[in-house]
């Protein structure tokens, strides 16, 4: 517990991102405005992604159709699971959907899994290493809405692109203006469509963010109990294993569903 201000300060410190911005954007030494970068989110998610996808790529490059190695077997198991979900839900032909689903599931899972490392462990180690004991550092990138929104907005654009590509511009526009009430009520159809399309990325990103943020919050509160945290942290961690997997799976599954809705006629 490095921050001053007791409990509130401790919690606030743990919920603050390591932000960098131009000096002109700082107000009282705090970054404001759009052009701020959360260094912790960017670094942790990037490094985790590079490590895990680099590992998967190296295993995949050595993949044989014969007896697979243990690592290849594990990657095939994960990838096969995702591919099965894609096959069950997405009936079109696309070279993008399965890799997209694999990326989401694996990346979200490893980022969520950072939650299982005790809340003070890595920040304190980092503060000791850098010598800056006031430096905030959030180690769970999925508790940053910037990350979840970046993912859901990317998914949104990909599904939009896929809808245009699969249906063609004319058919797509017809669907936007004529479904579900017919061409006479085109403005209402358009409004419905816009609400529907915007609701998707918002619900997708807020679901992941909310779950992980709340989970992290409970971890922080448990960590405040001092010695009593020991019997509480373990069950919550065990329960959290379920949550991190489930949230990764839900994000992946909904992405597949949105892709299939974009590719199929309503």
């Amino acid at each position, binding site marked *: 517990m490095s921050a001053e201000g007791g409990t509130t300060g401790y919690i606030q410190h743990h919920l603050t991102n390591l932000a960098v911005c131009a000096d002109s954007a700082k107000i009282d030494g705090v970054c404001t405005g759009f052009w*701020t*970068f959360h260094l912790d989110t960017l670094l942790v998610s990037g490094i985790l992604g590079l490590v895990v996808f680099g590992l*998967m790529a190296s295993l*995949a*490059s050595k*993949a044989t159709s014969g007896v697979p190695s243990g690592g*290849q077997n594990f990657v095939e198991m994960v990838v096969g699971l995702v591919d099965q979900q894609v096959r069950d839900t997405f009936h079109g032909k696309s070279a993008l959907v399965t890799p997209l689903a*694999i990326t989401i599931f694996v990346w979200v899972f490893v980022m969520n899994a950072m939650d299982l490392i005790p809340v003070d462990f890595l920040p304190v180690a980092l503060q000791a290493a850098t010598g800056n004991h006031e430096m905030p550092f959030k180690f769970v990138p999925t508790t940053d809405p910037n990350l979840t929104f*970046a993912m859901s*907005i990317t998914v949104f654009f990909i599904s939009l692109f896929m809808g245009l590509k699969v249906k063609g511009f004319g058919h797509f526009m017809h669907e936007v203006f004529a479904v579900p009430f017919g061409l006479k009520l085109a403005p209402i159809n358009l409004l419905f469509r816009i609400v529907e399309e915007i609701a998707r990325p918002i619900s997708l990103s807020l679901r992941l963010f909310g779950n992980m943020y709340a989970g992290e919050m409970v971890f922080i509160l448990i960590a405040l109990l001092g010695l009593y945290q020991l019997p509480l942290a373990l069950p919550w961690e065990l329960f959290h294993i379920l949550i991190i997997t489930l949230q990764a799976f839900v994000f992946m599954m909904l992405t597949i569903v949105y892709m299939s809705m974009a590719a199929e006629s309503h």
Partner: protein
Amino acid sequence: MNINATLIGQAIWFGLFIWITMKFVWPPLQKAMADRQAQIADGLAAAERGKHEQELAAKRSADALREAKEKSSDFIAQAEKRAQQIIEEAKGTAKVEADKVVSGAKAEIEQEVERAKQQLRERVAELAVAGAEKILRKEINASVHADMLGTLKQDL
């Protein structure tokens, strides 16, 4: 909760990882898995074929066995028949041989009897003559009754 330029950075990371998965992770794994699936399917088909062939071979061998059994029982029956024939033939020849021996012996016995009769005939004449000579010495002249005795000798 403040949205800022981190969004852009995260979108770039996300895009990069999608690209890596799409380019380097998914295609080789998909190929390996599909190949393995094909191999397993081939293996299962081959096993099925092998099983079928084995069934055929078992049927063939059973057929061959049955044929061999039939043939061997035929052979045995033929051999038994032949043996019976040989025995019959042997019996026949033995009978003929025995008959021959018997008839030979009979002929010999007859000859012997004939010869004994001849000898007896010779002797009877002599004995009769000697007896008659002794009886008639006193009263009859041998030369007178020679003709009659000669006739008697012929009749015997």
